[in-house]
């Protein structure tokens, strides 16, 4: 008997993305550029995060026409974003057959209290996190893949580094705790006791964890791999750069060969101008996307 939408099938799909780069695209042409550059998947959306940030207003699920166009254009998996807690956007994306849904803080949350119960869907979900407690809660709801949040649309890697270091430091701590210390840690993190026992047993998160939110150069992508990410999401960093093809290829190669520094030097030559970045302290607290969700 065939079983669909099991944890193994949903989490396994993310395992196949490891060591890869998932790129934000807003149309079929960008999707084809991403695929040709070696992206392992594309994220179809209406505006990249830096444009969302610039334009303001409410950011929603993309026009299904765009998602459909991207799905037709490439043979690699297509992901798409739904607003946090927006059951219907998620169901619509599932009905359209997208391969993965990102319940994303890049879009304006539809629910400030409850995230989606992702276990209830056949399609797998990826969610953002800034620490192990947030990771635990998303996995508890059924997320099959995680990504550290960073600060999307800034081209500034500092928040991505902060969040990945935080998650990994907390994983390392859990691994060193004795069994009788785990419950207190569970309370402190807002994570379930069972989840922490699993993390301790595995010595790592039970799902794939990519880095996101600020990757703008090949060196940024390699840095996230060095810090222990399973792969990277690049949002505005590619199609807001001067030469998207060059940036896309170089970021893919730097992710694979992230400890080959001579190669990264070569890859980084003559790429043209990277996306213009934003210093985090200049962003008003209310405009930080990472604060969305809990």
């Amino acid at each position: 008997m065939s079983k669909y939408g099991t944890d193994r099938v949903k989490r396994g799909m993310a395992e196949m993305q490891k060591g890869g780069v998932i790129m934000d695209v807003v149309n079929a042409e960008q999707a084809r550029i991403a695929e040709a550059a070696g992206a392992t998947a594309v994220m179809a959306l209406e505006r990249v995060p830096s444009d969302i940030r610039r334009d303001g207003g409410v950011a929603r699920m993309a026009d299904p026409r765009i998602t459909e166009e991207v799905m037709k254009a490439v043979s690699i998996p297509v992901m798409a974003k739904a607003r946090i807690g927006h059951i219907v956007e998620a169901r619509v994306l599932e009905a359209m057959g997208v391969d993965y849904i990102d319940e994303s803080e890049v879009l304006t949350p539809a629910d400030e209290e409850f995230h989606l119960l992702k276990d209830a869907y056949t399609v797998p979900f990826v969610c953002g996190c800034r620490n192990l407690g947030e990771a635990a809660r998303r996995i508890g709801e059924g997320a099959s893949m995680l990504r550290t949040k960073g600060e999307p649309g800034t081209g500034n890697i500092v928040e991505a580094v902060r969040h990945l270091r935080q998650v990994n430091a907390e994983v390392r701590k859990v691994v060193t705790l004795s069994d009788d210390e785990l419950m207190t840690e569970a309370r402190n993190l807002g994570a379930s006791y069972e989840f922490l026992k699993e993390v301790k047993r595995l010595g790592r998160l039970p799902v794939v964890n990519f880095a996101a939110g600020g990757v703008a150069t090949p060196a940024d992508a390699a840095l996230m791999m060095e810090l222990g990410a399973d792969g990277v999401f690049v949002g505005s960093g590619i199609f807001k750069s001067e030469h998207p093809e060059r940036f896309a290829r170089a970021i893919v190669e730097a992710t694979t060969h992230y400890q080959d520094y001579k190669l990264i030097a070569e890859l980084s030559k003559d790429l043209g101008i990277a996306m213009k970045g934003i210093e985090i302290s200049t962003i008003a607290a209310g405009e930080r996307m990472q604060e969305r969700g809990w």
Partner: protein
Amino acid sequence: MKRVGVLALQGAVREHAQSLEACGAKAVLVKWPSDLEDLDALILPGGESTTMRRLIDRYGLIDPLRKFAESGKPMFGTCAGLILLAKEIAGYPEAHLGVMDIIVERNSFGRQAESFEAPLSIKGIETPFEAVFIRAPHIVSAGPGIEVLSEHGGKIVMARSSQFLGCSFHPELTDDHRITAYFLSMIPSETGISLPKSSVYSKV
């Protein structure tokens, strides 16, 4: 100890390496042509075949991989790895390594929503194997030297020749190491047939 490479450009590399170690083999991660030296066999893991192909081309791995195949050493491809091995890919003008006499079709069970797990009967493996299929390809047809080992829903999902082993699914996503052990048994045994390296003996 048998030294088995795992192509480590992208995908489920860690899982294959762990499975090899669990079966008592030494896993060697292959990123560069020089990593192919001194291997007894090679695994091409699951992942995205288009990504792997781009990285194979960019780093001059295509000829070394084909030479590895010509040397007669066993190669095992899972999912994307199966696509890399195939002589022909339905609907695409060119194959990747093009070394195993099969025609494969990509994503032939559908998109992620149609990904599934199912118990498979596999020739040479006693009890059913819980197989995980993710946006999986299948083998449309197999040449004369190929033995079909398993089918699911009328589609060939696992096959071998004397040198090549390929499957549509991901044995590396389970803790069942029987298929890895099966692949290791395809490596010619070191005992009995090996000759001393010294040239003195050849003159005797």
